[in-house]
């Protein structure tokens, strides 16, 4: 109980301090210390789950099961990596006079507000609380996307706020209709997820179907499913690198997590067995759109944004296929993707900070100019496309097997094709960036190469940790999460 108060108070204190303290180095250090403490709290909470299945506090307002504790782990870990990265990132921006001191303080304020609202989504038991948390992330990240205040970033931020708030508005109608169709009349409804899970009965199947579709489409906007993905590629490519990493690694997962919560409630209701198809259809559209967009990208941060859409497609395809392997693969992939994408975005941020360009054809011979970053970039690419040594291979493979087991051959075909396309597209672009020689042969080593390596290595360590332990130590908690989602 104390740990949640501590966690939230750390966020609030850091938010206040970041506005008060004038020295930006102190603020950055406080931010790092706060995220380390939060990460330790999350580890402690995970350790509680060895013997328990769920914990609830504050009169059932806060509810944790292994599904949400995994989210909490991802949130705190990626926030830790991002705040480590932000320390040098912000100092660098200040030195180059890209931003003023005041803006740097606002960055930390919004950064913590963003992280706090994500934690609120993760620990909330109230379905409306989850919605409010998601809307809170929109509020916090709008200015973070428009942080550079140039034409491109303002455009991205405006698109983001309009599309996402309309999407979440549709999601809210969905939730309202969802409660309404339970036929409870005007009596005050207990909106707790746990009580909905045991007592939800649909009085009108049609309304419930419409409600879930609205929730899926509305909150799916935030996940970045394909027809609603237009904000994502702009937002992720224009935001500052640590923020892109957090958005891509955590926020998309978290929005999907909220949808999955509703899916868990509705899955057992007779007449609603076909909800899985919603996941499969949107996943396939996302996969197709993103994989073909990846092939013709000219901007490497945008490329990574499209890769996020693709990975969200893979995760929801796993849930849609169902079966033990599918759901297990989806859970595993969401974790690996969080860290792998963080690594990739932060490396891209380093390259951007050194070379000052986002265009792929202006980046040459990284292996000579920035060897450390180049190696990390290649490793991160291998993680994201799912090559064998890393856990992402096993997750994607599990999803493939579950699709074949369930006999969904067409979906499996499209899935495999898209994976190959993404693999080809990534290899093509990254080989160009890392090994290709430019016309003029000046390959001096850039000094910035060594600057911000620690957070990258840390996220690589996380990926390796997951890869090594998902079959033994991490297995129990993943297994519990799979049994919550249900086969």
């Amino acid at each position, binding site marked *: 109980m104390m740990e949640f108060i501590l966690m939230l108070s750390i966020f609030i204190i850091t938010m206040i301090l970041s506005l008060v303290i004038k020295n930006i180095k102190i603020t950055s250090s406080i931010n790092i210390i706060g995220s380390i403490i939060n990460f330790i709290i999350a580890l402690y909470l995970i350790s509680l789950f060895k013997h328990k299945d769920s914990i609830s506090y504050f009169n059932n307002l806060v509810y944790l099961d292994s599904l949400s504790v995994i989210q909490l782990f991802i949130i705190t870990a990626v926030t830790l990596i991002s705040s480590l990265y932000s320390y040098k990132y912000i100092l660098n921006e200040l030195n180059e006079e890209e931003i003023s001191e005041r803006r740097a303080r606002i960055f930390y304020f919004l950064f913590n507000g963003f992280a706090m609202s994500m934690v609120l989504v993760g620990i909330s038991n*109230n379905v*409306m*609380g989850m919605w*409010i948390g998601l*809307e*809170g992330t*929109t*509020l916090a990240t*709008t*200015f973070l996307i*428009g942080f550079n*205040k*140039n*034409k*491109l970033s*303002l*455009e*991205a*931020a*405006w*698109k983001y*706020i*309009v599309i996402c*708030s*309309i999407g979440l*508005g549709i999601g*809210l*109608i969905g939730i*309202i*209709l969802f*409660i*309404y169709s339970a036929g*409870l009349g*005007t*009596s*005050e*409804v207990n*909106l707790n997820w746990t009580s909905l899970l045991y007592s939800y009965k649909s009085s009108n199947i049609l309304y419930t179907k419409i409600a879930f579709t609205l929730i899926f489409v509305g909150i799916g906007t935030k996940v970045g499913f394909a027809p609603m993905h237009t904000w994502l*590629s*702009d937002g992720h*490519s*224009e935001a500052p690198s640590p923020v892109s990493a957090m958005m891509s690694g955590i926020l998309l997962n978290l929005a999907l997590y909220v949808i999955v919560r509703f899916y868990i409630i509705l899955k057992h209701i007779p007449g609603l067995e076909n909800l899985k198809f919603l996941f499969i259809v949107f996943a396939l559209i996302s996969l197709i759109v993103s994989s073909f*967009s990846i092939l*013709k990208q000219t901007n490497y941060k945008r490329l990574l944004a499209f890769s996020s859409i693709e990975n969200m497609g893979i995760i929801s395809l796993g849930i849609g296929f169902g079966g033990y392997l599918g759901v297990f693969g989806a859970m595993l992939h969401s974790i690996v993707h969080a860290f792998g994408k963080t690594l990739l975005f932060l490396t891209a941020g380093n390259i951007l900070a050194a070379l000052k360009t986002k265009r792929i054809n202006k980046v040459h011979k990284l292996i000579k100019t920035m060897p450390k970053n180049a190696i990390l970039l290649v490793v991160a690419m291998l993680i994201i496309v799912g090559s064998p040594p890393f856990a992402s291979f096993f997750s994607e493979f599990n999803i493939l097997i579950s699709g074949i087991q369930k006999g969904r051959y067409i979906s499996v075909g499209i899935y495999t094709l898209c994976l190959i396309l993404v693999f080809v597209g990534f290899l093509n672009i990254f080989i160009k960036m890392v090994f290709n020689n430019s016309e003029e042969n000046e390959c001096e080593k850039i000094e910035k190469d060594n600057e911000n390596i620690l957070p990258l290595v840390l996220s690589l360590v996380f990926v390796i940790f997951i890869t090594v332990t998902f079959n033994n130590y991490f297995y129990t908690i993943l297994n519990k999460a799979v049994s919550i989602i249900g086969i």
Partner: protein
Amino acid sequence: MLEILAAVILISAIIMAGLRRISLLVKGFSVQSLAIALLCFTFGYLTNESHYYLIGVLTLIAKVIMIPYIVNRSAKDLTINREMDPIINGCWSTLLIGISIAITYVILENFHSDFIKAGFVLMVVGALILVARKKAITQMIGFLTVENGLVLLEISMIKMTLIIEILIILEVLILSVIMAIMIFYINKTFNTVNTDYLSNLKE
């Protein structure tokens, strides 16, 4: 009383769809919000619950006083007063809204509350203003109309705990402030609030 308020909400929605002058749009929006606030008070009076009064007061403060003030201020600062060339012009918008109101009422036949239907209509109108207008500030009013529709649905369909309702309304308020600030920056950077110019990011 309730029927009159529902009528006011619907009529304001239809009129807003055809308007081009921003000050009039804001007036339409505040009349609509006032009707919703009065509706909350009436509900509170009829059901004798303090719950509704509070939502009413919040709507009154946020949507009748503060948001119109913010929008008017920023419209004055940016020296824009009307939508020059909307994507769908006023006449057609009004016609479209008329048709979509008819469709909404047919689809939602089974819901016996007028306010649920009115809520959906408001959302349609808001979405129309959002997509058919080019100025960022008009789009913002469209978004706020959608939010008004959400509030209507909320109070007429289900009952939630007070804290959640307050948080939702508070978030809408913050969102509109953020949008206003964004519009200010967009104007400063692009020298226009016409969203046609926001088209540098492409595939």
